[in-house]
């Protein structure tokens, strides 16, 4: 499976900074090492950071387990990294833990010596509480009230996810995770949450977790949760981009940047905002989502975006910040 991603990374002209945004910088480092190519110091630093985080994860989970008696279900991060089959291929900087009573768990962890970090305001009314860290360790802990899920797409309840829990593959007693089928859909929802089908690394995560999952069971679960459209689109995109098989209209029309491991251009970003609901949202929510997006585009900004349509999105953002 990584062979196709390796070819994609070998052919891209994107700098390491863009590969970091795609969360595939460690795959690129591994590819370069396997090919006997030299690694830039920044890439070696990425590997070192990832190694430290991987080593810190199990001890930190044990501390969390000792501090709180309720369910602690680990999602994404180290659990997905372990599914890659080798160390140092997938970076993570936090532990996302779903629990039954996040405020109580947060209080228990603080009482045990964890400390809250980052600005409080950022974490009001979102799916997890303010991050915690254990002094000296590099990872932060995020206690989730619910899985991170796009508002317009139906998903499972926290209770349903906790009820499906299985022992974590990291082997920390009392720490659970999701079965591969559930986890695959949580990863797919995550791939739609920040920017629909935005990161190549999200696609690789899903492909990696799918190796442990029953594809038909994932589809059945998606139907049960009401997110079949999102799943079908994601599955086809993963097959096309990561496995190099089949065709994905979504990738061709509004996620073509994935094939080049590059940034979306301004034009592609707007196309994605306008049309991705057609591919991922339940039918009844599509018109509202598209209308809402069309209203959000102010004429002055749209004209400027049009003039800069071919620029990478980050370059355009810098331009608009500089000129107001």
């Amino acid at each position, binding site marked *: 499976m990584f062979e196709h991603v390796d070819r994609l990374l070998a052919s891209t002209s994107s700098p390491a900074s863009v590969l970091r945004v795609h969360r595939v910088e460690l795959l690129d480092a591994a590819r370069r090492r396997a090919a006997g190519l030299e690694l830039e110091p920044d890439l*070696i630093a990425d590997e070192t950071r990832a190694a430290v985080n991987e*080593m*810190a994860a199990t*001890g930190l989970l044990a501390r969390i387990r000792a501090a709180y008696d309720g369910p602690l279900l680990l999602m994404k991060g180290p659990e997905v990294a372990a599914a890659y089959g080798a*160390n140092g291929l997938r970076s993570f900087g936090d532990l996302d833990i779903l629990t039954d009573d996040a405020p109580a768990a947060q209080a228990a962890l603080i009482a045990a010596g964890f400390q809250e970090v980052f600005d409080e305001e950022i974490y009001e009314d979102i799916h997890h509480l303010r991050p915690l860290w254990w002094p*000296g*360790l590099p990872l932060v802990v995020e206690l989730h009230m619910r899985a991170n899920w796009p508002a317009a797409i139906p998903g499972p309840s926290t209770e349903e996810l906790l009820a499906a829990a299985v022992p974590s593959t990291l082997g920390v007693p009392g720490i659970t995770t999701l079965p591969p089928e559930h986890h695959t859909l949580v990863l797919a929802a995550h791939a739609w949450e920040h920017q629909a089908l935005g990161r190549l690394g999200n696609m690789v995560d899903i492909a990696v977790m799918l190796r442990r999952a029953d594809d038909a069971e994932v589809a059945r679960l998606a139907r049960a949760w009401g997110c079949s459209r999102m799943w079908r689109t994601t599955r086809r995109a993963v097959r096309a981009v990561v496995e190099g098989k089949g065709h994905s209209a979504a990738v061709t029309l509004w996620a073509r940047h994935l094939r080049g491991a590059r940034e979306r251009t301004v034009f592609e970003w707007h196309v994605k905002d306008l049309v991705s609901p057609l591919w991922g949202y339940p039918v009844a929510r599509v018109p509202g989502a598209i209308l809402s997006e069309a209203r959000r585009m102010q004429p002055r900004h749209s004209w400027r975006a049009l003039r800069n349509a071919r620029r990478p999105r980050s370059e355009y953002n810098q331009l608009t910040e500089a000129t107001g």
Partner: protein
Amino acid sequence: MTELRLRVDDLHWREIDGEVIALEARGSTYVAANGAGTLLWRALAAGTTPDELADQLVTAYGIDRERAAADIEHFLAQLRDQGLLAA
């Protein structure tokens, strides 16, 4: 001769680009070793003696045995201070 070995419990380490990065999980402290330190670390992970360590340094770096022994003692003292050697 007494065998020297790195502690196993709560000590995690990886080698990246020829350098050892270690995490001592009880105290949440990090250790990094490069070059000769990595050579010694590898040997200590497998279990070794001060004489074997000196042999390795002499062979790898072409230094005299007296200097190798002094460097090793310094390195081992640091590991002992941090509780990284098995009892």
